């Protein structure tokens, strides 16, 4: 039957696809595994500051001493370029990079022009010309400003891109919709790792960051990362601010804003149906380790209130070693969190 399937695949013109898989989970040389912005979503006004934290690691574990430079990129992406941001964001000669810090952490305020450059607010028409084209929102209805880092590792310079989610409001909608969105849309909060567990035949072990996970050589262990489950509906007073609540109607939950930390519900304007719709975030987990291997490099969860975690099988190396594994959680609105876990193979 396999032969028949292969023959059919050939007939169906898929040709032969080469095996070009690369091992992205094994950390050897210094590289950035994740960048987290706090807050995860911000109104760009030149005042509100955001703190960025990079998770840098190599084969020895987390590295805080590798030189890392931080830049804001103010280059608007031409429509003819299909990458996530303008090519000018990777050229120091473009004049579009503004350095704002160095080291594993940096903070800066996004320029107030961000919603014009990267959002729905095009510059006003001048001299009778047609107005500029607004940037399309992403699938979650959000807009993002590029942040670029340059990591100076032993093997050379690595470039990383992060995009900071920005709050710009809605353009091209009625005033009622605009107001409803402004009051009911709540800025994204970074996800929160509630638990990291190792499940063995003998039972489940709750992992602590300061407590190495002890493994036998070649042992396979199921790692599970859990996040808080978020409610399906909003109830004022539950401590969480959802899309059906506003700061005026439920100050207890929304002032200050308190996110769920899991797969949050959020408001999105659907241009096809011309209405506000409530969505739920999906969640992805990226798995890394200095030694050993995983079944999957990435796992994740579809938008589902009943799913509170995801798992992966980690296979310990065959020889005794002390190492580190990491899990990075990303929600679909750009929120990030990560966790390092030491392990020892006896």
């Amino acid at each position, binding site marked *: 039957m396999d032969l028949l399937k292969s023959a059919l695949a050939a*007939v169906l013109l898929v*040709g032969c696809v080469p095996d*070009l898989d690369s091992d992205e989970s094994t950390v050897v040389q210094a590289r950035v595994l994740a960048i987290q912005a706090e807050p995860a979503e911000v109104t760009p006004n030149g005042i509100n500051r955001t703190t960025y934290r990079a998770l840098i690691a190599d084969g020895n574990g987390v590295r805080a001493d590798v030189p890392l430079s931080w830049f804001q990129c103010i280059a608007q992406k031409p429509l*003819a370029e299909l990458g996530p941001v303008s090519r000018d964001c990777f050229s120091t000669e473009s004049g579009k990079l503004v350095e704002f810090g160095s080291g594993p952490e940096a903070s800066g305020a996004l320029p107030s022009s961000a919603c014009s450059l990267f959002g729905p607010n095009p510059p006003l028409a001048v001299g009778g010309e047609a107005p500029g*084209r607004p940037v399309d929102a992403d699938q979650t209805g959000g807009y993002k400003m590029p942040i670029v880092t340059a990591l100076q590792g032993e093997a050379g310079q690595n470039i990383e891109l*992060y995009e900071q989610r920005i709050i710009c409001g809605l353009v091209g909608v009625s005033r009622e919709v605009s107001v409803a969105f402004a009051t009911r849309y709540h800025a994204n909060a970074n996800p929160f790792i509630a638990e990291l567990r190792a499940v063995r035949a003998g039972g489940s072990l709750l992992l602590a960051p300061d407590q190495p996970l002890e493994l036998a050589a070649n042992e396979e262990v199921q790692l599970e990362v859990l996040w808080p489950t978020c409610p399906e509906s909003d109830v004022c007073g539950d401590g969480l601010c959802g899309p059906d609540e506003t700061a005026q109607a439920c100050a207890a939950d929304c002032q200050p804003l308190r996110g769920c930390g899991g797969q949050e519900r959020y408001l999105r304007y659907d241009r096809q149906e011309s209405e506000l719709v409530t969505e739920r975030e999906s969640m992805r987990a990226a798995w890394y380790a200095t030694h050993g291997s995983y079944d999957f490099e990435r796992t994740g969860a579809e938008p589902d209130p009943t799913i509170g975690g995801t798992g992966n099988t980690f296979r310990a190396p065959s020889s005794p070693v002390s190492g580190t594994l990491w899990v990075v959680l990303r929600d679909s609105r750009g929120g990030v969190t990560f966790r390092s876990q030491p392990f020892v193979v006896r």
Partner: protein
Amino acid sequence: MKSFLPFLLRASLVWLALAATAFAQKAAPQLTKPPALTKFVEAPEPQDEPTPAGDVGVTLMVLIGADGKVGDVKVTQSAGQTFDDAAVAAVRQFEFSPAEVDNKPAAINIEYRYVFTIREEKVVPTTGVLAGIVKDLDKKPVAGVKVELTGGPSTITDADGHFRIPELPAGKVTLTLSGDRLTPLQTEETVVAGEELEVAYKVALAAAPGEPSDDLEILVTAPAALQRDVVSTKVTAEQARSVPGAQGDVVRVVESLPGVARSALGSGNLVVWGAGPDDTKTYVDGVPIPRLYHEGGLRSTVYAGVVNSVELVPGGYGAGYGRGLGGLLRVDTQTPDKRGTHGQLAVDVFDASGMVTQTMGPRLRATAAGRVSLIDQFSKALGDDVGEYVPIPRYRDAQLRASYKLKNNDTIDLVGMLSTDYTARGVPNPDPALRTREQRDSAFYRLYARYVRDDGRGARSVVTPFLGFGTQTIKNTYGSTTTALSDDDYVVGLRASHTVRASSFLTLEGGIDILAEGHDVSRRGSLGLPAREGDVRVFGQPPPDTIGFDSFKTTRVSVAPYLEGDFALFKDRLHIVPGLRVDPNFRSVSRKVPPVEGRPDVGLYAQNLAVEPRIAIRLRAHDKLALHAATGIYHQQPAVADLSSVFGNPTLGTSRAVHTVLGANIQAMEKLTVELTGFATFMDDLTMRNATSAPRNAEALLNSGQGRTFGVQTLVRRELADNVFGWVAYTLMRSERKNDDNQPWRLFDFDQTHVLSTVLVWTPLKGFEVGTRFRVASGYPRTAVIGTYYDALRDRAQPVFGGQNDYRIPLFIQLDLRASQTFKLGDTQGQVYLEVQNVTNRQNQEELVYSPDFTRRGSIKSLPILPVAGLSWTF
């Protein structure tokens, strides 16, 4: 072959049971004298019935009157409608001596068996005969004139000017008359199976050496075909069916014609002389169809059994056609011309198909044909998971045709055709962000009538009104990014032309080409998907995750009159064919700017006048050498999806191209021609993405692009002779594009420097045929990845590109073989074929792919050695 046993009344005269019974039971009345046959009339043997040798009997109940005359005749045991009718008609003319009952003449019923004796097997003819005479202007027979059929046999007129060519396949044939004092003339005739077509040609001869030259003009009473295209390749259906690689699909022979780039695996793209896949237009009997191939490029959308010929004009075509920057593909179809009921059933690994043709009287015939894919059924049998990964093509197509012959040279055809496609595939992944799904669903329908009037003296009228509908939906999901494009359209049009021989040296054709189309378009997703020519990307790259939405309607009307003349000068050695096509077109788009909630849509109305002068020149410099040149201006409206105010630009104008062609045609041997053609195409106002970093609203696309193509095309073609035909086609070409004035010239995404295609088909034994196709083609240019950066938001590597299209996929080389055997199955015919594609199992590269971190590059390989078998039954 056929005979009849005259007057063999082996039929027994059996008295009617009723009369006999009555006679026996009642003892009176009594038959005192049986009737006796005094006059026998022979029934003509039916000609249209395929019948094995032996007796064929029709049993009849015959009422004989008291006067011996035949009254009512009824069939009690049939031998088929045509035999029954013939027998009844003959028996009605019989005469008998009256029967006597009780010694008095009386009416009586008898049972009579009429027997036809077929001594030899009778086969319905499939060929006809073309015979005639060639005379000069003084009505004297002309001997020594060569009468040659294009792609077929030839003969020489005898001393009485007569010629006769037997066993010609039924249908249209093109023949050329040539001789020492006769400049070659070309005309068309229609051969009917089983019939002999008598023609008479009157020609004017050049003055013989030493004679006064007072008669320099050539006159032929047969219609002179107006040949407006100086470079075209036409292949008859019969030959195309034998070309390896096409699995008998006549239209797919296009892939092997000169000037056609090899299309990427499974794409079915038709890239001709460096024009984009959508720039070469396909017409079936003059009616535009939106797609030539089904999804995956496995099959054409026109059933092979109704195709008469396929003609590719890569550029420099005449004023009769327009609305395209590239080439022209004309598929000429016909209703099969066989008497009685005939048909064909065929099956191979891809699909099953069938066709049935029925004649209804001498003037009307009809055909129904259909095809359904089987490959999706195979995939179901193998399990659902195959369909998860592989785009299983599911397609259907059908044609219904009726042809009515109004007069000898007037015909009207009514044709309906449909084509549907569906494919879907996806790649599951434990990470929802990496799950992909693609679904394509499309269909088109066409209904047209085609009226052809040919007065036999050079005047010809063709009128083709048509209408159609279509729908197309494409959905792509990459993680949470979903893109969708749907387009529902209708099309109404009319193509009409009239050709007249205005004088002995001038043939004129005037016509009008009207097309009105409406589209209802909805699009959601990223600007980057579907990808466009000129996009810098790699295969499989996730689309941008920004999402837009637009829905709009557009109506386009184009009314293009044209006039073309063929000036035949210097004893028909020089033909100058100037033409002018004027194409005023109008367009409305329901949205000029992106939708804003609460505000009414503002529409757009635009008009444009495209003036397209064209000229072609053909010079027969020598009996064996002809030179040709052509140039012309061509326009093309923007693609409908590009008129979106969100994803495109509703104000896009028409793109323009100038074709220039210069070449020679050498008759190297009697059956061997060599064509050499140089070509250059210049294009401007091409639709490109807006390259500015701050584009204005509703201007995602601009008419900023330019293009240029230069090349040389050669074709060495051997016409069918000694059971061999074939060709060698080679094209050397460079095609470039420029996105806007600020960008440098770059290679066109579909540029192929070298394209070599060799086809050779041989019939060593009757019914057995072998063929080979050998292709060599440069790979498409691609933009290589020279670096990478980590996208920490999306958690994946992103490519950094080098120079646009600076890398070329390695050379494609492939050898295909085909063998077929035709055999008789009683009165019918069967055929079995085996094609082996990529006989050498060469690992050709089709497309570049990269590892997820872009540090390693590989390629998708083409098909390995692939045998495909099929069989058909023709009755």
